[in-house]
């Protein structure tokens, strides 16, 4: 049999390569380029080696925003996961309540992020905002623009409002894929409600929860828009999370070299944590 050799089909892949190059590879390499050099604008560069990396890794400012970022992510995961699973468990499984709940749950996810920030900013204003005003009128000394505790409280509340739905929807999908026979068998085995959750629902939700944790980790670790609009990182540096700090360094101070080094370190931290977490969660899967 004669086989015709024709490799021209490869040309069809070129647009993809060009696209990926321009939206991912080239910008990333630019950042890498900046991270090893000093620039004063006008395209004048001076080689600095690993100086920026060393500086960032030893910078107290970086440690502080990384710490704030870690605490923030930890708290919102701690709240959103159990809350999301709990809401998913209480949602109706059939009838008219299903579409109603699903639509209500999707709403916060559909609102543009800066709008979420603006909404909560107005909502929480101590003098005219519904939340701020109500809290003050029942005796709390609440002012998120001046007290760092209040700023944290408001930021976390906003994120819980904005993103718990994602955990709910994923958990709900996981719960719905459980065959009725599992519940029937558990009923016959005399399992308690807690047993059903512990031995059936939770193991069956493992995959979607892994996904939920990964998504919530990444998004919250890279959070920018909402706190930028709500608190702008303040008061002082109280809610100055990593990406806010990064933008301040890059665009506010025009320290492009250190900012580029920080971006890369930031990127590697996210990648590393995701990889470790994913490997741990999937270890059992590989064994079976």
């Amino acid at each position: 049999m004669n086989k015709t050799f024709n490799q021209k089909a490869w040309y069809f892949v070129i647009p993809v390569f060009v696209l990926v190059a321009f939206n991912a590879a080239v910008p990333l390499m630019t950042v890498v380029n900046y991270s090893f050099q000093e620039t004063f604008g006008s395209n004048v560069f001076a080689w600095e080696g690993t100086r920026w990396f060393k500086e960032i890794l030893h910078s107290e400012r970086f440690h502080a925003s990384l710490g704030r970022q870690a605490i923030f992510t930890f708290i919102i995961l701690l709240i959103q996961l159990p809350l999301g699973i709990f809401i998913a468990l209480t949602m109706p499984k059939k009838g008219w309540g299903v579409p109603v709940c699903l639509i209500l749950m999707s709403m916060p996810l559909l609102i543009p992020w800066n709008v979420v920030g603006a909404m909560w900013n107005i909502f929480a204003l101590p003098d005219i905002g519904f939340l701020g005003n109500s809290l003050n009128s029942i005796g709390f000394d609440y002012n998120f623009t001046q007290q760092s505790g209040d700023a944290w409280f408001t930021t976390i509340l906003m994120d819980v409002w904005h993103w718990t739905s994602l955990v709910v929807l994923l958990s709900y999908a996981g719960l719905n894929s459980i065959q009725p026979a599992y519940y029937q068998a558990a009923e016959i085995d005399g399992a308690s409600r807690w047993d059903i959750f512990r031995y059936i629902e939770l193991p069956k939700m493992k995959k979607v929860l892994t996904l939920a944790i990964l998504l919530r980790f990444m998004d919250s670790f890279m959070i920018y828009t909402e706190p930028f609009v709500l608190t702008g990182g303040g008061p002082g540096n109280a809610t100055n999370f990593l990406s806010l700090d990064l933008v301040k360094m890059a665009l506010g101070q025009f320290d492009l070299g250190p900012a580029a080094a920080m971006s890369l370190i930031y990127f590697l931290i996210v990648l590393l944590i995701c990889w470790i977490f994913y490997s741990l969660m999937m270890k059992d899967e590989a064994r079976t």
Partner: protein
Amino acid sequence: MAKITLKKLSHSYLTNQNNDADWALRGVDIDWKDGGAYALLGPSGCGKTTLLNIISGLLKPTEGEILFDDKDVTTLNPVERDIAQIFQFPVIYDTMTVYDNLAFPLKNRGLSDTEIDSKVKEIAEMLELSSTLNNRASGLTADGKQKISLGRGLVRSDVNVIMFDEPLTVIDPHLKWVLRSKLKELHQKINRTMIYVTHDQIEALTFADQVVVMHEGQIVQTGTPVELFEKPKHTFVGHFIGSPGMNILPCEIKNGQINFEGKILPTNTSIKKTNFSKTQVGIRPEFINFSNDGIQVKIKRVSDTGRHKVIDTECKSGNIKILASASTEIPTGSAHISFDQKYTYAYGDNWIIE
């Protein structure tokens, strides 16, 4: 251990029922002896799983009652009824070991650790799971998992009835045979009432002493495998059981006799009632012979299955299948056939006339 009585059981998944089709079960009456092995046989959607779930207490019937040893259990839940049920697909607790899976129903009933240990080991031995007891259940193959499901049902010695809902669907054919014999063996050993739901006639006929055939939410016949084969009470049983199924052809009934193709067909059952909207004659392919005179048929096709031949023939009223031994000489073209009168039955509106 209990005998099971079902009285006028009906169930519908709808809140309003307008016609027969709205009912998943219609007026089911059953008396099952303590310690018997029973099979519920029928095609998908005939209501057999509904009936099973009602007996186990997972479903509350719309009408009728369920008695265990003459005690009304209609409103009790599965735990109070003390039953075991094995489902079509393996249901295991993924994160537990095989041992913990088997021990789970016992733990929930507050048995002591030593009791649990001896029972789990005994049942694991029986199902050949002993070597995997400490493995995680999720790592087993499909049939290993189904053995765990079986084990969880069989581990409790106090159950009133053990129910199987097509438990061998996911099992490989060669293992099916092994597990089926195992179940039969278990039944003889522990002597508990067992109900086996299946759409596979071979499974039902080999497992059970009594087979209940269901069709469109009703019981059409209850009997031993031999009874179902030799004297189907309903045309559905004739079709469904046997391979190929019974020949059922339109006929007329006059003066208590079957008139078919202008001839009178002799039969051993006496025909009394005659007012039916549809009358048919039924004869199994096994009980038809070639003869010198009788009904004239045209031979259409002969398929040799090795042990016997299946002959497709055609007469004026329709197609007739004949099963003959492999050595039978098959005439070509047209032939005459006669029916064994002992196994010739008349059916009025699908039910046997006798």
